[in-house]
C-alpha cells in the first residue's frame, strides 16, 4: 500500500461468519451471560459451604428422573437447530423451517416437564435459602429458554415467508449460537442442582 490510497470498492458486505462485527458482539453477550450464570453458581456453592445439611432438614433431595429426561430433550434440541442452520447455508429453506419448528417443540417440552416438576415440589423461593437459590437458577434459565422459543418463532415465521437464503442468514446464525449457549449452560446447572447435593 505504498503511494496508493487503499481502495475498498471491491470488498463485499459481510452478513455472517466470524469476521463480521455482530459475531464479536454476540461473543460479548455470551461472556456477560456466562459471568451472570457464574455468579449464580458461585452463590449456590457459597451457600452450600455454610450449611451442615443441604438441602436443609425437612426438604428432600431433588428427584432425578424427570430432570434427566428434560435435560436430554434440551441437549437433543441442538441437533435440529444445527440441522436448520447448516441447511440454509446450502440454500435448503425446508431444513431451516422444519429444524426450527422441531427445536421449538423440544424447548417447549423442556419447559412443560420443568413446570410439572416444580408444581410438585414441597418448598418455594421464600421457604429457605436453598429454595431461593434453586428457584432463582431454574427460573432464570427457564426464562432464557422461553426467550429462545419466542425468538425462534420469529425466525421461523420469516423462514416460512422465504426471507432467508445462503447469503442472508445472519439472524439464523446468531440465533443458533445463542441457542447452543443456552443448552450448554444448562449442563453445569443440571449437575449443580441435581447431583451436587448427593455428592458434595
Amino acid at each position, binding site marked *: 500500500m505504498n503511494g496508493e*490510497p487503499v481502495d475498498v470498492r471491491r470488498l463485499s458486505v459481510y452478513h455472517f461468519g466470524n469476521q463480521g462485527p455482530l459475531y464479536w458482539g454476540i461473543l460479548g453477550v455470551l461472556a456477560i451471560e456466562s459471568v451472570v450464570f457464574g455468579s449464580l453458581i458461585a452463590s449456590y456453592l457459597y451457600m452450600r459451604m455454610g450449611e451442615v445439611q443441604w438441602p436443609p432438614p425437612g426438604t428432600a433431595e431433588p428427584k432425578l428422573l424427570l430432570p434427566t429426561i428434560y435435560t436430554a430433550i434440551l441437549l437433543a434440541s441442538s441437533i435440529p437447530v444445527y440441522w436448520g442452520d447448516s441447511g440454509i447455508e446450502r440454500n435448503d429453506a425446508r431444513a431451516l423451517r422444519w429444524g426450527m419448528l422441531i427445536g421449538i417443540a423440544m424447548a417447549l417440552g423442556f419447559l412443560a416437564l420443568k413446570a410439572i416438576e416444580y408444581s410438585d415440589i414441597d418448598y418455594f423461593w421464600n421457604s429457605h435459602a436453598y429454595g431461593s437459590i434453586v428457584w432463582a437458577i431454574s427460573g432464570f434459565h427457564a426464562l432464557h429458554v422461553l426467550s429462545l422459543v419466542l425468538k425462534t418463532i420469529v425466525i421461523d415465521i420469516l423462514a416460512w415467508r422465504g426471507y432467508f437464503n445462503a447469503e442472508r442468514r445472519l439472524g439464523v446464525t446468531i440465533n443458533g449460537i445463542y441457542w447452543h449457549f443456552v443448552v450448554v449452560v444448562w449442563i453445569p446447572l443440571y449437575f449443580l442442582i441435581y447431583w451436587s447435593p448427593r455428592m458434595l
Partner: protein
Amino acid sequence: MSSPETAPLHDPAAEEERQLVRTWRSPTGFPGWFLPVNQREIGKRFIVTAFGFFIAAGILALLMRVQLAHPRLEFLSPDLYNQFFTMHGVTMMFLFAIPVMEGMAIYLAPLMIGTRDMALPRLNAFGYYVFLLGGLLLYAGFAVGLAPDVGWFAYPPLAGAEYSPTLRADFYATLIAFIEVAALVAAVELVVTIFKQRAPGMSLNRMPLFVWAILVTAFMIVFAMPAVMVASMMLALDRTVGTHFFAASGAGGPVLWQHLFWFFGHPEVYIIFIPALGMVSSIVGTFARRPLFGYTALVLSLIATGFLGFGLWVHHMFTVGLPQLAMSFFTGASLLIAIPSGVQIFCWIATLWMGKPVIRTPLLFVLGFFFIFTLGGLTGVMVASVPFDQQAHDTFFLVAHFHYVLIGGSVFPLMGGLYFWWPKFTGRMMSEKMGVASFALLFIGFNVTFFPMHELGLIGMPRRVYTYVEGMGWDNLNFIATVGAAVLTLGFAVTLINAIWSWFRGREAGPNPWNGDSLEWATASPPPVYNFRHPPVVRGRWPMWENPQPEDRVTGLRPDRREVLITTVLDARPQGIAVLPGPSIWPFLLALAVCVAFGGFMIHPAFFLVGFFAAFAIVVAWHWPGEEERLPPWKERTRE
C-alpha cells in the same frame, strides 16, 4: 472553510461531501431528539448528562460539608444526611464516573482508530437512554423522599426488608441493576469497534494508549458488572418476594452480598481509573513533544492492572472475620498492584524528562494527578495491610484515601482531558488563564478538603455520622475541610464558566491545535457528521507525527449509505464493509420497556413480565427486515 451546502455543483469532492452529510446527519427538533445513533452524538450526551449528575452529587457533598463544619449543627437532619451520602456515592460511582468515561470513550475512541461510527450504533443509543432513564428515576425518588439511605454499598441486613421497610432501598436495588445494563452495552460496543474497525495499518501494537485503556476497561466491565447485577437482583427479590439470599439467619447471609458486591466494586475502581490513565498518556505524549517512553511497558501495565483488579475485592472486607489465609492472599495482591501503577508513573516521568514539556492546562492537571494519586496510592498500600485496615476501617481515613484515589486518579485526568479535547468537541479553545486558575483552585481546594480527613480518621472520627460533639479534637480539622470544599467548588465553577464562555467566544481551534499524535486530530474540529471523508491509513504508532501523505487514505466507501470499513483483529488489514443503520426510535422504546421491567419490579413483580414481553415485541420490530433488505443481496457494492 466552505460549507458543503454552498459549494458549486460540479465539484465532485463537494458533491461527495454533500451526499455524506445527507447520509450521516442526525434528525433535530423535538421528536428528532429520540432518534440519533451517531457515535459522537451519543458520546456527547453521555458526557453532558454525566456532568449534570456530577454537579448534583457535588452539591450534595457541599451541603454535607456544611453540616459537618461545626459540632452539633442541625442544618441537615440525620435522615436527610443518610440520603445525601448515599446519593452522593451512588451518583458519583454509577451516574458520573462510569458514564463520563464511557462518553469520552464513545466520542474519542472511534475517531482515534479512524472510523466513521461504532459497530451496532442503535445499541449505543439504547445504552444512553437506559442511563438517562435510570438516573432520572433515581432522582425522582429523591425528590419525593424515597432516596436510598443505606450507603452506596447497601449492606444487608440494613438494606433488607426488615430494617429498610420503605421503597428507598428498592430504588437502589432495582435501579443499580438497570443502570448497569448501559455500562455493559457500551463495553461490548467498544470491544467490537476497537477489534474490527481500526484504520488499515493500525495493528494492535500501534493502537493509541487511550484506546488500549478503553479496551482493557471494556473487558473489565464485561467480567465485573454482571456480579453486581446478580447481587442487586437478589437483594430486590429478598425485598419484594421474600427470598432468603442475604438473610442473616440463612445460608448465604450478608457476607455473600459483600463478596458479590466487592467482586464488582473493586474492579469498578479500575474501570473508572484506567480510562483516566489513557487520557494521561495522550496528554503527556502531546505536551512532552515526543513519543511516549515505554509504550510496551505502558500497555502491559494496563493489562496487568486489569487482571490484578479482580484479585483485590476481599481487602474491602478485612473486618468481616474471614480466614487468615484469604486475608494474607488479598494483602499480597493489593500490594502487588502498586507495581504496574508505579511502572506507568515512571514511564510518564521519563517521557517528560526526555521531552521539552510545554506547560498548558491539560498538563497541569496531569502533574496534579501525579501528586494526588501518588499520595492516594501510598495510603492504599497502608490500608492493604490487615492490622492497619482494622484500625482505619470505616473512619475518615478511608474517606480521605478513596477521594485521593478517585478524584486524583480519575477526575484530575478527566479535567485535563476535558481541556485537551474541548477544541475537538466544540471547535474552540478554552481560556488558558481561566484554566490555570481553575487548576490552582482545584488543587489547593482538594488538598485542603481531604488531607485533614487522614488525621480525622486516625484520631477516630467515623464516616457516615451526621454530626459530632465538641471536645473530640475534630472541630478545627472539620472546619478546614469545609473551607476546602468551598474552594474546590469554586475551582469547578471556573471551568464551567470557561466552558460556557469558550463555547461562544473561544478562539477557533483548527484541526490540531495541540499538535497531537493520534487520528482524532486528523479531521476538522468539531468533526463533520461522517468523521472522515476518507478514513485514514496508518503507517506507525504516532500517525500525525509521521508526516502523513495525502494518499494515506481509504477510498471507495459509498457516500449514499452508512458504510464503515471492517479490518482484521490483529493487523487491521481491510476485510469487508459493514452497512450501519440510521436514526431509529426503537432504542428509546426498548429502554422504556426495560425501565418498566426494572422500575416496576419494586412495586410488583408482575411488572417484570410486562416489561419482558414489551421488550421482546420491540426487539422484533427493531430487527424486522426493512424494504432495502428485502431486495436481492448485494453481490457487487458499487454501481459502475
